[in-house]
């Protein structure tokens, strides 16, 4: 009897271990599939649009439309080399059957194109204005009338800029139609650059265009945080010697009133989802701790009472009662707590050093920087499901990779990396692909992605 039991124990252990491994794999697959989002992507065939009196601008239009749709990562983009020789430009061009000329929907859904949807249209000069007619049809439908998914009419100036504008707007509508959580159109990245000689706050379009300086404080300005509506930017500045928080109107660049609690350090500001509160780290009570105040700095109160360095409060966008922050004791890790300071719990597993938590718009996942598996200071970007604690590594030791933050679409990340020498800003998709460098001049750090 005893012997039998002894024999059973390893067998039981083995079963339990296999179970654990399987659960681990299953969960790993979950986070992996979440970030890649490959399953069930609409397959788009985007045809070349032509113009009547606007043809010189259609090159800019076609490349912008394609690139917006591709970089949204909402779609699988079908290769143009497999397209039929002709394509519809207006709904009335569509036929039930056309011997694979390109005017029938099944010419696009069948082999070799294999698209689920076809995007077509054209532009014309009307009274000195560029008018763009854009259509999306479900290529798998047999009934042409029922196949129309989207029709839009867009206007712009009679030049490349006007054509690009209509392409952005049309792409935005397509992305939203397919359930994209939001478009990058109009979103802006705010960051810190030293290219003018001092660390100032700068801003640029989400694709790196239109880089311009917002502050001229001639000091050190760092750790920006953007309000959810993109109208205000809070950051730390040494402009008045001691590190203090300043809040700017992002449109005018003008400072807004903010009362700084008396302290040797007020830093790492973060707006609440409704934009009415500002969480930050302050040494008002001694060591750096998480505090909260109104967006004007009034109504200051302490949130946590722990005796460890605490910085980077990050309010959950879906549940403002939950905060993440970065703290010790020991090596810095990411922690969570309730917004009243209760229920403090470590989120990262204690390996290496962890920092820069950034909530995904879904309030469930975070991007963050971690040195797990590397020497201290060798930061890489990771994504984690805060509920299951499963994580995926997105960068792999190409220099230091820090401060990842999500785009409003929840599919793109911007981060800072010194992979090419000096620290520059890069965007990538949530699965780590399509890495694109946005900045070149000086050193550029601390990016945040605003909805405008």
């Amino acid at each position: 009897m005893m012997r039998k039991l002894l024999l059973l124990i390893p067998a039981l252990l083995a079963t339990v271990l296999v179970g654990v491994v399987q659960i681990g794999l299953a969960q790993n697959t979950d986070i992996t599939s979440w970030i890649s989002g490959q399953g069930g992507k609409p397959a788009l065939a985007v045809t070349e649009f032509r113009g009547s009196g606007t043809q010189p601008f259609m090159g800019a239009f076609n490349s912008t439309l394609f690139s917006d749709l591709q970089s949204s990562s909402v779609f699988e983009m079908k290769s143009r080399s497999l397209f039929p020789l002709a394509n519809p430009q207006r709904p009335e061009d569509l036929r039930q059957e056309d011997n694979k000329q390109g005017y029938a929907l099944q010419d696009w859904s069948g082999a070799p194109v294999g698209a689920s949807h076809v995007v077509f249209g054209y532009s014309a000069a009307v009274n000195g204005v560029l008018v763009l007619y854009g259509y999306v049809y479900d290529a798998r439908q047999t009934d042409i009338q029922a196949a129309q998914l989207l029709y839009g009419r867009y206007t712009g100036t009679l030049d490349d800029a006007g054509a690009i504008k209509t392409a952005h707007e049309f792409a935005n509508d397509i992305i939203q139609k397919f359930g994209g959580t939001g478009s990058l159109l109009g979103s802006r990245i705010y960051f810190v650059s030293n290219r003018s000689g001092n660390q100032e706050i700068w801003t640029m379009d989400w694709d790196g265009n239109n880089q311009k300086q917002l502050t001229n404080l001639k000091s050190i300005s760092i750790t920006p945080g953007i309000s959810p509506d993109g109208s205000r930017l809070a950051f730390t500045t040494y402009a008045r010697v001691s590190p203090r928080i300043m809040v700017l109107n992002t449109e005018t660049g003008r400072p807004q009133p903010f009362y700084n609690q008396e302290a040797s350090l007020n830093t790492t500001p973060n707006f609440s989802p409704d934009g009415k509160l500002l969480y930050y780290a302050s040494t008002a009570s001694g060591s750096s701790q998480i505090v909260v105040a109104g967006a004007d700095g009034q109504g200051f109160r302490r949130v946590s009472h722990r005796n460890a360095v605490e910085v980077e409060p990050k309010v959950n966008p879906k549940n403002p009662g939950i905060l993440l922050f970065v703290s010790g004791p020991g090596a810095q890790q990411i922690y969570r707590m309730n917004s009243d300071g209760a229920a403090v719990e470590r989120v990262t597993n204690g390996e290496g050093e962890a920092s820069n938590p950034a909530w995904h718009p879904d309030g469930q996942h975070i991007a963050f920087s971690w040195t797990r598996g590397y020497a201290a200071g060798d930061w890489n970007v990771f994504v984690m499901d805060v509920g299951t604690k499963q994580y995926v590594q997105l960068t792999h030791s190409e220099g230091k990779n820090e401060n990842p933050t999500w785009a409003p679409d929840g599919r793109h990340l911007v981060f800072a990396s010194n992979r090419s020498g000096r620290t520059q800003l890069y965007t990538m998709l949530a699965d780590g692909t399509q890495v694109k460098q946005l900045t070149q001049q000086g050193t550029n750090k601390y990016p945040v992605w605003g909805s405008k």
Partner: protein
Amino acid sequence: MTTKVSSNASSPVRSTRSATSKWVGISLTMLLLVAASGCKKKVPVPPPPPPVAPAAVVTPPAPARANVAEFVAEPATIERGQSANLRWAVTGSNDVVIDNGIGTVPANGSRTVRPAESTTYTLTANGLGGTVTKTARIVVTAPPPPPPPPAPAVDRRGTVESRIQSDLKDTLYDYDSNNIRDDARAALTANADALKRIFADFPSATIAVEGHCDERGSAEYNLGLGDRRSNSARDFLIQLGIPAEKLKPISYGKERPQCTEASEGCYQSNRRAHFASGQ
């Protein structure tokens, strides 16, 4: 000095004598002029010392003969606007006169004078045996130029800064720590003494206690860690008697490294509390 003067003076003379041709003569004359003018510039020849008055010779043989035992100016050199004292002692005369507006004076006496320029006073004593004169010279010098204006405030601050830089040593820390190590304890104790001297010399000075970190921890966390370093060094100095209000804590995290290499030597030099002028 004497030898130098005599050689300078005598050698050109010999050269002139040995000259035969006109050209040589002219050139040597010029040389003489150059040498002479050079000599004038270099060392003014001092007047010969006055002969020492034989002290004992004065007495019996001709009792009626006037004798100036003493005529001195004290001090012999004054600045313009100051006064000097003339003192004299004359025997064998009832008619003693000092020039320069002093006039007839008693045989023994003194007078305060305030000459505007260097003046030689001549005392004339008329006695039965004849007239004796003696001079006393008061040299008047120009007053010294006004003192330079006090150094502007910036220079004075520069001095505070140079004192801070030379007298106050960085306090070094372990990675991710604000504990005061033994070497830091010694450095801070020496800094406390230096600070007391600096505040004695510059009572209005304040000191920024800067907390710095190496580049490895995240920038945000290092702001908090740097603040702890700044405050641990500051608290230690306060315990050693430095007034708290003189020491301003400020954390720079890893925003202002003094060294940017990826090596432990560089990391260690950046993990520090650093002292700078608080203004």
